[in-house]
């Protein structure tokens, strides 16, 4: 088992005719993702490497039975693209677009959650259930090398770090059950603790690895769930961005989300809170496997 997607999940790609959509989709198909349709208004009837393209998500869903969508639409159109997917009944949405206008993001997230759908992003490179399926650019053409199948659930605020974390797990003899780049924008569809709950319920996940940053309340929610006993599997966490605390508050660094807003959402405060709640904090990639070995043997 894995979370959110597996090898039977039928996936469509909104914006499949753009360069990034084509580039990623090719690697996804090669990996084994069941990509059944593409959507680009005005390109209906065409195909991209044999994948039929439709003008609307609704028509693509009607024909293909897709339940997941990966969206390659630039920021000005991303809100509508998500709303269109939700309207068509899509249940797992991956929105790669970054720097989405705040009001648009709030609307798209509210609509997705109201429909009981799941939104990975904004500002994600997707998710992967190693050996089964991947959505988005995650792993590129080296997904097999970077994401070894295994029993650790990985969830990262940063897309690129998901590869480094998974490679570090592989180097330490561990593999990944599912790895999610949850999104690095200030407003994202689902929180860290919601992924933790999924991993907690997944019989094929033994422990979880999280990567966080300053500037959101994700780690606070995770810490609460750990303290409340809602999450019982071992949790290893990295929180980067401690350096910001020695610079004047408000300098724009990293993801827009990584802005110091209060002492409480600084990297070191999050590390402390998670540690006090029972998570194991890694400061270097090499430490992750050592911490897991202590808990899992």
């Amino acid at each position: 088992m894995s979370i959110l997607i597996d090898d039977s999940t039928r996936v469509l790609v909104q914006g499949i005719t753009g360069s990034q959509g084509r580039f990623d989709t090719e690697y996804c198909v090669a990996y084994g993702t069941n990509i059944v349709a593409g959507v680009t208004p005005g390109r209906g009837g065409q195909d991209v490497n044999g994948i039929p393209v439709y003008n609307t998500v609704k028509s693509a869903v009607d024909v293909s039975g897709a339940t997941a969508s990966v969206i390659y639409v630039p920021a000005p159109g991303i809100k509508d693209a998500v709303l269109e997917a939700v309207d068509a009944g899509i249940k797992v949405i991956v929105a790669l677009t970054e720097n989405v206008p705040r009001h648009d993001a709030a609307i798209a997230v509210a609509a997705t959650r109201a429909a009981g759908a799941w939104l990975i992003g904004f500002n994600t490179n997707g998710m992967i259930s190693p050996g089964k399926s991947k959505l988005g650019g995650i792993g590129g053409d080296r997904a097999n090398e970077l994401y070894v199948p295994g029993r650790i659930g990985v969830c990262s605020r940063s897309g690129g770090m998901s590869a480094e974390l998974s490679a570090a797990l592989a180097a330490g003899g561990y593999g990944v059950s599912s790895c999610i780049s949850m999104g690095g924008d200030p407003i994202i569809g689902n929180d860290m603790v919601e992924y933790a709950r999924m991993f907690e319920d997944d019989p094929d996940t033994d422990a979880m690895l999280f990567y966080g940053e300053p500037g959101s309340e994700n780690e606070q929610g995770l810490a609460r769930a750990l303290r409340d006993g809602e999450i019982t599997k071992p949790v290893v966490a990295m929180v980067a961005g401690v350096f910001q605390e020695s610079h004047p508050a408000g300098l724009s660094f990293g993801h827009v989300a990584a802005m110091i807003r209060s002492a409480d959402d600084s990297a070191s405060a999050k590390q402390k809170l998670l540690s006090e709640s029972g998570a194991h904090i890694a400061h270097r990639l090499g430490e992750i496997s050592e911490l897991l070995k202590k808990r899992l043997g």
Partner: protein
Amino acid sequence: MRLTEEKVKSWLRDNRFPVPDGGPATNASDAAVIAERLGSVAVKAIIPTGRRGKAGAVHLVDTPEDAAEAASTMIGQTINGYPVTDVYVESKFTIDEEYYLSFAFGPRAPKVVISRQGGVEIEQTFECDPDAVITADVDPLDDLKPWDAVGLWERSGVGGPVLARLGQLTSRLYAAFREADATMIECNPIAADSDGQLSLVGAMMEIDDNALFRHRYWTNEGHGFGAEGRILNEREIAVMRANETLPGGALRYTELDGNIGILMGGGGASLLQHDMVVDLGGKLANHTDFSPAPSIDKPLAVLNAILENPNTKGLLVSFNYLQLLPCDILVGALSEALKQHNVDAHTFPVVVRVFGPGEEEARAMIEEFPGVRYMPPKASLDDAVKLIVDLTNEAVNGGNAS
């Protein structure tokens, strides 16, 4: 983008919100002309920060002569770190009651914060009288209805004829907040005169930089200030312009006071590597945040800025495993920048950790630049960071010795 007072006030006026009469002046005599027309005025330095009163940036005067003097006192000074080039001269509003209203973003949705006690800092009100501060989420899929706003003001302890006016104003301002793609609006105080007429006397506003594509009106307003109002230098402005005009993802460049220049991709790897540099005793000359671009132009703009920064003594180009951008585009930009700036990697260390599609071509390009260290496959982020810190220290100390 944080807007200065004269821009907020003019935007409010354009949207038919009640604001005191006033206007900007760049010198003493212009300030006097406005004061002549308005009578008793407040003369305020135009700088993108709050708490101006405490910093001596607000003068209350009754004559045009005093307005001129206040203007000439402040213009040319540096207040809260910002050079004052102009002042805002505004009619003094007769204040009977003061209220507080703001909109900002919570984790998922906009929040409205109101208080019956305006004119003081909201944190202070919250500390002394938490019941006077009402905070509520606004459903992004809905408006903030006037009657809901009335309910909030009522809960905060406001009653009487002003209640309906505050409700209307709050609802309309929320609609404008959304329409303008603002991320923050703070009105403190909203003043009421003895007739219960409202005026937005204090108003601060921040616009979402990521929504500027649909707000041409603001596009040329923010140059010279960073996200939080910090003054940008010429290299930072050059990168900001490149970000706006060249195709590709978002590009950010902020200079710091160290000597290791970095081009790092992926916000996460940037943060982690930055922490590691600091851990190893190194200091960065800049921070960057860079997303994939279809050509070398955007990475080249950042690399030019880094190499033109006189404090930069070494360069680390280190990305997460690249899944979105071919290595040869990025390293192509690096080659071009190294050529343009005649960089000798034997005295100015350059470390590259860029893995993924196009890596073979990228490695071949770098061979033309003897001394540049391209990390071997599977080298970790830790390895690249350690190498640039060591090499830069060596280069700097060697330079001092000779």
